[in-house]
C-alpha cells in the first residue's frame, strides 16, 4: 500500500498544537505504518520534496512569510486542515487586531517598560530579510481554501488522531462530544 504523505507547519502559533499531536502517544507507531511525513517540524524537512495528501496548519497568518508558506501548502497538499484556534480564528496573536499596527510596534520597540533603555536609538526593525507584519492576524481560511477545521487550544489528541485516521483510511468517523472544545 502506498503510504499517504503528510506535511505540517506552525505559522503564527506556539507549537502547542504540534505538542498535542504528539499526545497521541503510542498510536504514533500505528500512524507511521500508515503515513510518511514530508515538510514538517516533526522530521525537520524544510522544503516540500513531493506532493502531499494532507497538510496540517497550526497558527494564524501574521506576516508575509506565513502567507507564502500557507500558499505553498495549498499548492502541494490535496487536503488542508486548520488545526487549533489560532489557525481558525487568529487566537492569542489576534489580540493585536483591534490595535493599529504602528501602535503595536511602538509599544514593542519604543515605549514598553523593558525596552525604553535597551533601544535608546529608537530603532524599529526594518531589515529586508525580516518578514513584513500584516495589518492584522488572519485566520487561514481567509487567505486560502481550507478543507477541514479542528478547533481547540490545543485540539485534543483524540480529535487529531481520529481525523487523521479517517482522512488516511477513508473510513467515516464519529467524533465524540467531549473532544470538540474551543479551549
Amino acid at each position: 500500500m502506498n503510504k499517504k504523505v503528510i506535511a505540517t507547519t506552525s505559522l503564527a502559533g506556539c507549537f502547542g498544537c504540534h505538542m498535542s499531536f504528539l499526545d497521541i502517544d503510542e498510536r504514533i507507531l500505528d500512524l507511521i505504518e500508515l503515513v510518511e511525513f514530508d515538510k514538517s517540524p516533526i522530521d525537520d524537512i524544510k522544503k516540500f520534496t513531493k506532493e502531499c495528501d494532507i497538510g496540517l496548519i497550526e497558527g494564524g497568518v501574521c506576516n508575509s512569510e506565513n502567507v507564502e508558506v500557507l500558499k505553498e501548502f495549498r499548492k502541494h497538499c490535496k487536503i488542508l486542515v486548520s488545526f487549533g484556534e489560532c489557525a481558525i480564528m487568529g487566537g492569542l496573536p489576534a489580540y493585536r487586531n483591534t490595535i493599529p499596527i504602528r501602535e503595536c510596534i511602538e509599544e514593542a520597540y519604543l515605549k514598553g517598560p523593558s525596552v525604553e533603555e535597551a533601544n535608546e536609538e529608537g530603532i524599529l526593525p526594518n531589515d529586508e530579510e525580516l518578514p513584513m507584519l500584516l495589518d492584522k492576524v488572519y485566520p487561514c481560511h481567509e487567505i486560502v481554501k481550507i478543507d477541514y477545521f479542528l478547533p481547540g487550544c490545543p485540539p485534543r489528541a483524540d480529535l487529531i488522531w481520529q481525523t487523521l485516521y479517517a482522512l488516511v483510511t477513508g473510513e467515516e468517523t464519529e467524533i465524540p462530544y467531549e473532544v470538540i472544545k474551543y479551549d
Partner: protein
Amino acid sequence: MGKEKEYVTITIDDQEIQARPGEFIVDVARRHGIYIPVLCNLKGVKPAGSCRICTVLVNGRPMTSCTTPVADGMEITTRSPELEDFRRSVIEILFVEGNHFCPACEKSGNCELQALAYRFEIMVPRYPYQFPHREIDASWPLLLKDHNRCVLCKRCIRTIFDKEGHPIFAFRNRGHELEITIDPEYGKNMTDEMARQAAENCPVGALLYRKKHGFEIPIGKRKYDKEPIGSDVEKRKKEKVS
C-alpha cells in the same frame, strides 16, 4: 366575553400538549422534555426576544418561542434543517461580531454561547471575523465588564436591581455602538450578592465577579465539558417515557 379557557391544546413536533394560556412556547416545550435552544432567555425572567436563537415555526411562520404565548390550536415545529441552520448562523454571527477568545476566557466551559456552538458542532463560522475594538471596564470594585464578549442579551439589565428596585445595568448608545453600562449612581448600591448574581446570569464571560477566583474548575469538570447544553431538558423526556 366568555370565561377564559383553563387549558389550550397545542402540538409541538406532532406531539399533542396541553398548556395554560399565556405560557410561553419555550417553557411549555421545556416542561415536556423538548429542548429549544435559547441564549438571552432566562427561566422565570420576562423574556426579551433579542437573540432569536429560539425561533420556531408557529403554524408555518418563524416566531421567537421565548416571547410567543401559546394559543389554542397552535402547530409548532421546533426542528427542521432550515431552523437548525438559522440557529447555527445566529451563533456564528455572534462569534465573529465580538472578540470571543475562548482559550483565554474564565467562562470557557461554563459559557452558554460556547455550549451552543458545541451543540451545533460549529467548527468554524461561515462569516468573516470582524475584530471590533472594544474596551474592558475594570473601574468597578466588584465586577469586571468585558465588552469584547458581550452578546447584548440584556440578562443583567433584566435581573439585577438595587433594594429600591432601580436597575443597576442599562444599555447606552445605539446600533453597533450599543453596550451595557453600569449606572453611575445606582451602581454604588451594588452588593456582593448582586455582583455575583450578575456574573452568574451572564451567559458569556462579559461580567466577571472580581472576588471569585477564575479557572477554579479543572477542564473536564466544567458545566458543558461532558454533555451538550439542553441535555438536562431532554433527559426529562426520556424519564417520562420509561
